[in-house]
């Protein structure tokens, strides 16, 4: 455990942060610009994952296991969300025979 943690600390913390911010932003951009719901779901997963990465890094740097525990929680929740999300996509496909997000615009004003 000690070694892993010190191995992680070989790379400066800033790099982790930049990486996860980059990942987060990629996910963000994906959610913003893609219209396919499945890809959007994946992008949200990506955002979650960037947070997990960040947490792990912080956890290692702070030598505090809580961050890693948190990562597990995130993963569980993300799984649950994806399960719900995918079932919604299925329902959507059934109802309107498409997974284009922009078709969902009947509720407005």
């Amino acid at each position, binding site marked *: 455990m000690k070694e892993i943690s010190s191995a992680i600390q070989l790379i400066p*913390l800033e790099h982790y*942060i930049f990486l*996860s911010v980059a990942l*987060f932003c990629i*996910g*963000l951009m994906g*959610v913003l610009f893609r219209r396919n*719901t499945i890809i*959007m779901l994946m992008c*949200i997963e990506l*955002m*979650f994952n*960037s*947070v997990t990465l*960040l*947490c792990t*890094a*912080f956890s290692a*740097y*702070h030598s*505090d296991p*809580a*961050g890693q*525990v*948190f990562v597990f*929680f*995130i993963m569980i*929740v993300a799984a*649950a*969300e994806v399960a*719900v*999300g995918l079932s*919604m996509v299925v*329902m*959507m496909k059934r*109802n*309107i025979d498409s997974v284009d*997000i922009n078709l*969902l*615009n*009947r*509720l*407005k*004003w």
Partner: protein
Amino acid sequence: MSALIITTVLGIILLYLGLTKNKAILAPAAITGLLITLFLSLKTWGHGSKYFHDMIIIDNFSVAFNVSMIIITILIFLFGINYYKRMELHVAEQYSLMIFALAGAFLMTSFSNLIMLFLGIEILSIPLYILAGGKKTSYRSNEASFKYFMLGSFATAFFLFGIALVYGASATFYLPEIKTYIAQFNGNLPPMLMVGLLFILIGVAFKVSVAPFHFWSPDVYEGAPTLVTAFMATVVKTAGFAAFYRLLSMGLLPLPAPLKKALWVMTGLTLLIGNLGALRQTNFKRLLAYSAIAHSGFIMLAVLSQHDLSASVLLYYTFVYSLATVPLFIIFILVKRASSGLETLHIFQGLYKKKPWIAVFTTILLMSLAGIPLTAGFIAKYQVFVLSISQGYLAISIFAILMALIGIYYYFFVVREVFTETAESNPIIVSKLNAALIIVCGVAVVALGIFVWNVPI
């Protein structure tokens, strides 16, 4: 803690009961379970306890909010008896999902650790995503759930990112520790911490539909099945604000100046958008959605005023708001049924002729939302203004008062429809239980406006 456990178990039991295909026992079972929870919650009043390495702290604050939410949920279930009679499938799931969401709400009122907050929010949200899409074949329900889900998880991502950043800065998830950590900066927080806190706040603000993160709520409220909308507008909002307040009071107060200003801007925007959005609304559900946003603005005012009474006012406000909103949704369902599924405000026309008593109580409930005296809504708003004015926020108070005025306008717009005669004469069928409940709620709203309490929390 036993309340939380029982609630979770209750949800599972209900799922099993669903297998018996006997709808009639679902609601009584759920309500009985909730009553037990209510009783257990009340028993813990005054005996605070901590669990899971102090990640959950059950104190009077959480008990009070839990009780309030249980009562509202029972109310919704009581109304649900009639509502779900027409539905053939998956009724048990509906009940149990709501109860699961309630369990999440309990977490949101008793966390002292960001992880628990996150879990609470998610346990609350995921059942709601499903509930919003409860009408599987309905395009609108589908759209509502998808919008809710998409925006919700998006917000969650930011929320998580915020937690990670704060964790990175402070090396802890415990709010009290975060508080001491923040205190050492004397208000000049490092950017990373600041942004992290902002993201956390935004994540919670999203749940209570504070502008500019409110966009989901009108659409979702409109599209979701009405009973679910009622649940979202009341229990979820109560939970959200409880979490918001707990987050602030446990971890963030005194707020760093930039964050505080940001929150004030949000409050102002919420008041503005909520009220202006409702002003020209023709769909009643959307009207209530915007009104919910507007009320979020008022509650924000109370939360941000940082007064000894803030928590009590918050409890009072959310409770009486819920108490008025739930029956209004039910009345809406009844009226909607009578007018073949229309949702415009015009469907209320002639209510006064058809069901005078229901009309009177509709008026009382709307008046409570509008904040007209001798209804609880007035006292609630009054207390909010007492807080904000005595903390010296005069300009925003005046602004809020003007917005309240707009609020009165659109609520009375509905009142006017209720008392307008119409040529159409589709009978409105109100079951005895519903009528009784509506009347009880109406009377309660007035009674709470006269016999005002404050809970020492």
